[in-house]
């Protein structure tokens, strides 16, 4: 299957004298984390299927600096940002789609002040517009018929950037039952990974945040917990395992669900 993936790099495109429509910013999790790599591939399959002319930076991509910034290391963040901006500007990048809400937020909101101005969207927004434009048909609707899906709002997509509808509209095209958790949208509870928590042990408390959030999800008795962030994915997957429910409940990125439904 993977040999079918077309993943041109910016360098290759440039050498061939071509200019991509959009840069796919894969992100660190999407590049290195085994679970997240699958999400990356699902996004690529959708882009390939719709003939979106895109490219990745490949080995020229580097961390946006998000975890450093949230942890208070403004020096490191700005170093990363300025190096990335040099690369992006050298390729005259105008439009970026990211596979991660943290990259999305940082590139979109925090790079402009350091001189990096791009049109940045999250992959759910891109995929939704492909569906809206009729370029992507989600026909294998049967795959999810009768399944109950609940969507966990990633903080950096929802509250941080007010993107609540795109992922939900995508799920609606699946012909599945969409069930909301009691804390959703603006009230959605964090999965516990944000603010650089992903990279450290939690402070002393009486519970892990991802367990609290998984309980919210279990309450609606879903077949699938959907999300739009590789870190939320890790946290919710661990949470589901903690309740020994990994046999019954899948944690999936909306991009993966769409790719599956579209038979990719």
């Amino acid at each position, binding site marked *: 299957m993977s040999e079918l993936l077309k993943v041109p790099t910016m360098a290759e495109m440039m050498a061939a004298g071509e200019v991509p429509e959009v840069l796919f910013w894969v992100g*660190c999790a999407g590049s290195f984390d085994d679970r997240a790599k699958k999400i990356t*591939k699902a996004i690529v399959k959708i882009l390939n299927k719709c003939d979106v002319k895109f490219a990745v930076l490949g080995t020229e991509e580097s961390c946006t600096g998000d975890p450093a910034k949230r942890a208070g290391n403004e020096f490191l963040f*700005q170093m990363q940002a300025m190096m990335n901006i040099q690369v992006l500007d050298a390729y005259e990048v105008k439009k970026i789609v990211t596979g991660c809400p943290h990259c999305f937020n940082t590139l979109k909101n925090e790079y402009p002040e350091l001189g990096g101005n791009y049109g940045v969207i999250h992959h759910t927004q891109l995929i939704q517009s492909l569906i809206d434009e009729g370029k992507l048909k989600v026909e294998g609707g049967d795959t999810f018929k009768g399944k109950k899906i609940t969507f966990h709002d990633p*903080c950096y997509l929802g509250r941080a950037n007010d993107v609540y509808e795109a992922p939900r509209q995508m799920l609606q095209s699946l012909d599945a039952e969409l069930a909301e958790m009691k804390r959703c949208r603006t009230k959605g*509870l964090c999965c516990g990974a944000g603010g650089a928590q992903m*990279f*450290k*042990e939690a402070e002393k408390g009486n519970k892990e945040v991802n367990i609290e959030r998984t309980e919210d999800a279990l309450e609606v008795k879903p077949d699938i917990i959907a999300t739009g962030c590789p870190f939320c994915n890790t946290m919710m997957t661990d949470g589901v395992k903690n309740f020994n429910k990994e046999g019954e409940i899948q944690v999936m990125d909306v991009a993966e669900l769409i790719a599956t439904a579209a038979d990719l």
Partner: protein
Amino acid sequence: MVAIIVFSILLLVGIGAFAMNVGRIRANILLGRDVDRTDNKSERFKTMALVALGQKKMFKRPIPAVLHLMLYAAFVITQIELIEIFADGLTGQHRMFRGSLGGFYTFMISFIEILSILAFIATFAFLARRNLLKIPRFTMKEMTGWPKLDGNLILIAEIILICFIFMMNGADEVMYQRGLSHAENLGDGSFSFAVSQWVGPALFGGMSDSSLELVERIGWWGHIVMVFSFLNYLPFSKHFHILLAFPNTYYSNLEKKGKFTNNEAVTNEVKLMMDPNADPFAAPAPAEGEVQRFGAKDVTDLTWKNLLDSYTCTECGRCTSSCPANQTGKLLSPRKIMMDTRDRLDEVGKNIRKHGKDYDDGKSLLTDYISAEELWACTSCNACVEECPVNIDPLSIITEMRRYLVMEESKAPSELATMFTNIENNGAPWQFSQADRLKWKDEN
């Protein structure tokens, strides 16, 4: 005549003391660093109208919102009656607008009376909620002592105030019926105010003429004394939000919540480091004493908006009850962050007034009030910012203090220090080589 003099003194002292207290708080807030919030005036007015005046965010929790609205409406509308009380007090007349305003006067006072009854009910409900129902956000650690007392005092004061209003209007009604009221007699036999025309005769109907006079005067003076006490209690209380909610929402952060501020001092240094041709001596060294800390150790390192936030905080705890860290038993409470900031700022302000501008008491917001453990528990999820009914941003204070810990003291938790090193060396928070970034493409 004596009454007019006493009233005038009361008015001067009441308003003068209030002005002094406000000035003190303003000076404290201006100890903060500068931040520009003068752009986009129309958007700012809109935010203020919706969030402060319209209480938009309160309605996320409908029951307290309705009760709060009753109190708020009574508070705002009752102020109209104060105009007459001031005028009467200064001229020695009684109900001087009744003759000229006629039916409209009856309507206004009736409206105020009805709102007062609603406020009376709401006050009891709030007292019960605070003290009988065990609502977690009112019983947490930071809500013991003064904050708890403060919450109850104002409710009790509200009840007393409303009692005074009905003593004043009720006794006057009976006096008017007996033709004894000092108000101009229009020959109509009753003031016809919605509530006091019933309550008055029922409560005070059996009293002698002289007792009636006494009750009416106690009501009138009690009312005005309560108003002035309230005014001067505000600046020492969370109830200052009644006023500060307006500027605080006007100066709201209008950017996306995910956008953290850019630290410009850092930008300059990073640019120097990145540019091989830059002359490190070209930039003029900042004058001694002007060197700004990176991040915040004490309240004076925060922006004036952070400090305004701290005085505006209503201590309602909506932020804390939505905080993932707090809900899972961590030490962090965004409400406590705001209360600590305010308490420390009060302390710093007092020190400056007592000992002069450069006095150092050896304490700071970080460690003496807020611990590193609290700061590191935050997931930067913005739930607290989203929930706050008066647009306070506890997360920006947390971030500034993390910046200080990391950049000035190199005190990040060790796993985070490792994460920093990884980003520096490999361009990723984990120990993977940047050269392997595209490997996923060929894996199965």
